[in-house]
């Protein structure tokens, strides 16, 4: 997914710093909300491990969002944003298809990893189109941040204990007919 796939309505060549910051805020917000949804889905299906991880991701994305909001307010105060959530489609948010009821914590981490990679691709491909210097700087910073996140998640993945001989799918009941 590139910037053109997940934000087809945005003209990146005309993007101002204010709009770019707002966009970045919204991207974190979208990811936060999605992790919250996924955590709820998994909790509903009694997958506490994956739900716990996604709940952690909610907090992480919220921290990123808050940092961006602070930066935005420092520069532009409370000026009305010109961009909205309707312009974004799963930039950093994992896709719904990325989760399964019986996914392991390791798979949940992989999902997050893919999402961070997705976000990196978004900003790096957008970088080729943005014109304003300030926006270029911002997106370069964001690219670097996403790379940092990728490394963090990869590190966590490596620290996870090796999976045992039994997967959830090996032992779970058949689905219940309704």
């Amino acid at each position, binding site marked *: 997914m590139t910037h053109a796939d997940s934000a087809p*309505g945005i003209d990146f060549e005309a993007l101002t710093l204010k709009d770019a910051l707002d966009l970045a805020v919204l991207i974190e917000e979208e990811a936060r909300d999605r992790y919250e949804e996924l955590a709820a889905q*998994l909790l*509903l299906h009694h997958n506490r491990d994956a739900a716990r991880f996604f709940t952690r991701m909610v907090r992480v994305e919220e921290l990123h969002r808050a940092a961006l909001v602070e930066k935005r307010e420092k520069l532009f105060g409370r000026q009305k944003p010109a961009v*909205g959530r309707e312009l974004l489609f799963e930039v950093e948010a994992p896709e*719904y*298809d990325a989760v*399964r009821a019986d996914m392991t914590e390791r798979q949940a981490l992989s999902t997050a990893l893919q999402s961070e990679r997705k976000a990196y691709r978004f900003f790096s491909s957008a970088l080729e189109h943005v014109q304003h210097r300030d926006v270029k700087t911002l997106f370069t910073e964001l690219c670097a941040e996403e790379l940092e996140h990728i490394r963090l998640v990869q590190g966590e993945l490596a620290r996870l204990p090796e999976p045992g001989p039994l997967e959830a799918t090996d032992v779970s009941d058949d689905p219940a*007919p309704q």
Partner: protein
Amino acid sequence: MGCGSLEASDFKSDLKPIWCPGCGDFGVLQALYRALAAVGRPPHEIAFISGIGCSSRIPGYTTAYGFNTVHGRALPIAQGVKLANPDLLVVVAGGDGDGFSIGGGHVAHAVRRNLDLTYLVMDNQVYGLTKGQLSPTSLKGLETVTSPLGSLEDPINPLLYVLAYGAGFVAQATPADMPGMAALIEEAIRYPGFSFVNIQSPCVTFGEEEQQLRAHKAKLKPLAKLHHDPSNPLAALDLARAYGRELYTGVFYRNPAPPQPYDALVRLRQAEQSKLATPRAQLLDTWLADGRGKR
């Protein structure tokens, strides 16, 4: 790029979807929130009607007036809603079994009446709620619990059927293309008349691996990129024949000159006939034996 007064989140209810994590319907719901926000009608002016099946749970996950009815009857019930109050925005949703098996007989009539409704079918080629039986859109040869030796019958082709019935708006979407799906649902809702969007929404629990969204992403072919002219009904029919083989997304057919929808004609008739209304106290005069009450 302004934001309207309504946002997608305004359409999200407190009920938590019971769908399996990974289900295609989550994407449909998200796209629908966006489409409804874009259309801009407040939730209380929307009636969202569904049948029975996993996907038919969808009205409850919105803040609109929802009616999760019985298996296969969402379309007639929705028509009653729209005729009773044409001011409402009426959206109908259900699965392939709901729409093309048990309720299949209603589709032709909903199309020919052409009320201003939008019908979203979440087509997953399987019965999910009852645990993986053959559905009307299952491919021939599919092995399921009710076709353990492989099905012997061809699937229904929803696109071809609805086009052949004469629908003015026929499209196909997949959650593998969220922006495309949200735009299509919005366009369908805005179409003045019966509009149909077949959504290839994979079943993560009972569906085939090659029908999951990852496969969709590799397979999907936007009709716009094929330079299909959606005002050409014959080209639409031809493309629709590929259902089950190709995953075309976008608008197959859009009537370039939509006729007045049925509910608009109903309003005209009511306005015209209202001049002939009799006061309640004199309603029975029509039956006076001496003929005085006859008009």
